């Protein structure tokens, strides 16, 4: 960029009508609307909207199986608690690329940050559906009523600040899409600060999600309760996030093939092998902590019943096994095995988070919570909506493609032709 640039203000100022029609033109769908994904997701999302209408007019009881004994269901246990752990990849990858300068991972950084941002927006945003009195959600934000001593207060604030950090990290791609060069340079300059801020916030809210359950000590099965829940949540968010990045980038590379250069496949394999090493290490640390807690709390007597088996399934089947698979895959460069390990780790995270928040929660109470089908439809709606927006953005902004192949030149041309 050189000094002959006009200032972005003037530029956008003069071209506002052009910008508007550019944005309109970008709303046009790309590609066929009749894909399998669309055929499934559209009816589900429509049903989700109807259910949410009923939920907000008739109360939570109309569409959920929540009860006095089970105040939190899958809208919290899956959407928020599990969803945020799945979205941990963004802080891991930005840490690797911008703090440790591991340039190898650079090609996936944008897609990962975009995914992380959207996941927070949708999954943490889904919290609003679960709030009984959502109009008061501004209270802890605008400060007329700060519950400093509440873990939830900290988690909520860290969610919001972290979304801001991720938006800043992603904003260069938006500026490129719009062709705002000066603004892009400013945004780029903020990246490192945003990353430092974002990684710090992430360690706190990932562990904070675990701290939410510290006061539920008499309600959670002792195999899942520990005073170290915050640490366990933090460590597991590392391999959870990495596993999600592995699967998500593999899928993206298939779906958005046309945007990628010829050797991107080989590069991606290198990246995945590197990620697998990190995941194996994180899984090992996690397993080690789990074993320490198990031995230290003398929990041998607890593994003799159904709960014990269920616990062993989670720890051996979906922590120990994927750990071994990751290590094997990384060592023998077996990308297929790594992907299996990634899938299994994610199942392990899902089991762990749901056990703590739903399944082994109130294990000693007769009133068992099983999600209402409408809760599942709304959860799917949230997931599908995120994928829709992700796809929309990847089709338009320079997220996956090599910068310069498609992108700003088109934008310039489009602008010119529009004026």
């Amino acid at each position, binding site marked *: *960029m*050189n000094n002959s640039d006009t200032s972005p203000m003037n530029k956008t100022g003069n071209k506002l009508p052009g910008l508007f029609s550019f944005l309109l033109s970008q709303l046009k769908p790309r590609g066929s609307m009749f894909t399998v994904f669309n055929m499934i997701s559209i009816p589900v999302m429509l049903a989700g909207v109807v259910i949410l209408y009923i939920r*907000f*007019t008739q*109360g*939570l009881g*109309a569409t*959920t199986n*929540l009860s*006095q004994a089970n*105040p939190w269901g899958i809208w919290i246990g899956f959407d928020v608690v599990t969803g945020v752990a799945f979205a941990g990849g963004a802080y891991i990858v930005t840490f690797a*690329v911008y*703090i*440790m*300068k591991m*340039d190898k991972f650079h090609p996936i950084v944008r897609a990962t940050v975009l995914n992380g941002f959207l996941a927070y927006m949708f999954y943490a945003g889904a919290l609003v559906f679960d*709030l*009984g*009195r*959502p109009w*008061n959600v501004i*209270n*802890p934000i605008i400060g007329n*009523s*700060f*519950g*400093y*001593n*509440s*873990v*939830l*207060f*900290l988690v*909520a604030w860290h969610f919001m600040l972290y979304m801001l950090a991720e938006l800043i990290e992603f904003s*260069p791609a938006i500026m*490129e899409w719009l062709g705002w*060069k000066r603004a*892009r340079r400013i945004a*780029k300059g903020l990246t490192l600060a945003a*990353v*430092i*801020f974002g*990684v*710090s916030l992430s*360690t*706190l809210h990932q*562990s904070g999600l675990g*701290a*939410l*359950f510290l*006061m*539920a*000590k*008499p*309600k959670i099965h002792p195999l899942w309760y520990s005073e170290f829940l*915050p640490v366990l949540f933090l460590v597991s968010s590392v391999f959870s996030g990495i596993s999600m990045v592995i699967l998500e980038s593999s899928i993206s590379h298939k779906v958005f093939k046309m945007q990628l250069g010829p050797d991107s496949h080989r590069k991606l394999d290198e990246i995945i092998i590197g990620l697998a090493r990190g995941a194996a290490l994180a899984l090992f640390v996690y397993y080690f902590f789990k074993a320490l807690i198990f031995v230290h709390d003398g929990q041998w007597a607890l593994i003799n019943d159904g709960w014990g088996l269920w616990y062993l399934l989670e720890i051996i089947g979906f922590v120990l096994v994927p750990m071994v698979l990751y290590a094997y895959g990384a060592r023998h460069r077996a990308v297929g095995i790594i992907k299996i390990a990634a899938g299994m780790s994610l199942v392990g995270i899902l089991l762990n988070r749901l056990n703590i928040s739903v399944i082994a929660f109130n294990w000693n109470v007769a009133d068992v919570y099983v999600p209402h089908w409408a809760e599942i439809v709304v959860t799917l709606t949230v997931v599908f909506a995120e994928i829709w927006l992700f796809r929309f953005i990847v089709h338009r902004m320079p997220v996956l493609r090599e910068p310069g192949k498609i*992108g*700003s*030149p088109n934008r*310039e041309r489009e602008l010119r032709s529009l004026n």
Partner: protein
Amino acid sequence: MDRRDFLKLSGAVGATLMGAEAKAAQSDPDAPEFLGVLVDTTRCIGCRSCEVACGTENSMLVPDVANDGALDNLRTTDEKQWTVVNKFDTSKGDVFVKRQCMHCWQPACTAACLTNAMAKTELGPVTWDGDKCMGCRFCMLSCPFDVPKFEYDSWNPKIQKCSLCHQRTSVGGTPACVEACPTDAIMFGNKRDLMEIARTRIYNHPDDYVHKIYGEYEAGGTGWLYLSAVPFEEIGFRTDLGTTPYPEFTKDFLYSVPLVLLGAPALLAGLSQMSGSSDEDDESEVHGE
């Protein structure tokens, strides 16, 4: 420096940084004693006058005591009734037990609440404010006695729980249930006096009571205290809640937050310096000049 000192130090740093000391209602000898109620289950006859009085006073459900046969089932308080009386078949015959919010010394529900909607008033009653509450139900998840209840069937739901008749007790009055009790099974007062009365009763009638006052230490101590002739497990009380005030469980985490917010960015900035500058070419990504 061992772990405790470290935590204390970080706590001090945290408190200064956040401008709010994690206010512990710790035993300050000069502090006014919180209000409470002593329930002597050996005196309760199961007439449920307290349920009726509570419903009337607080515009909640007024049970039809003569006909509803409610004593045949074990009930919990719910979103329609702040207090219920249950009948237990024990080794010493039928025992009736009134339950409601325990008005903890250091309540889990108020520590959980991110809007201060759930708050411990100066006199001791724990109250709920609908203008602040956002309905997250974290108070329900955290309360060791499972007290706060939620109106699932309303678009504008409230959290329902006993307020110790705040509207009466804050102006020197007596809770409606206490006033209605025909046998003095429930007595209203401050905790110190009530503890003395409870101990005296055990001392004078050592064979009529188990030698324990439920609520003296449970979950850090509660405003409501119970005397019983049979072990408390037999009349529906959890005796595995421990004596630690529940907010303590999250204190270590809360104290570490400001430390991490200060320390981590510095550490990360240092790390990124050390790892050298990235060869990422900023300009090469912009095109269309």
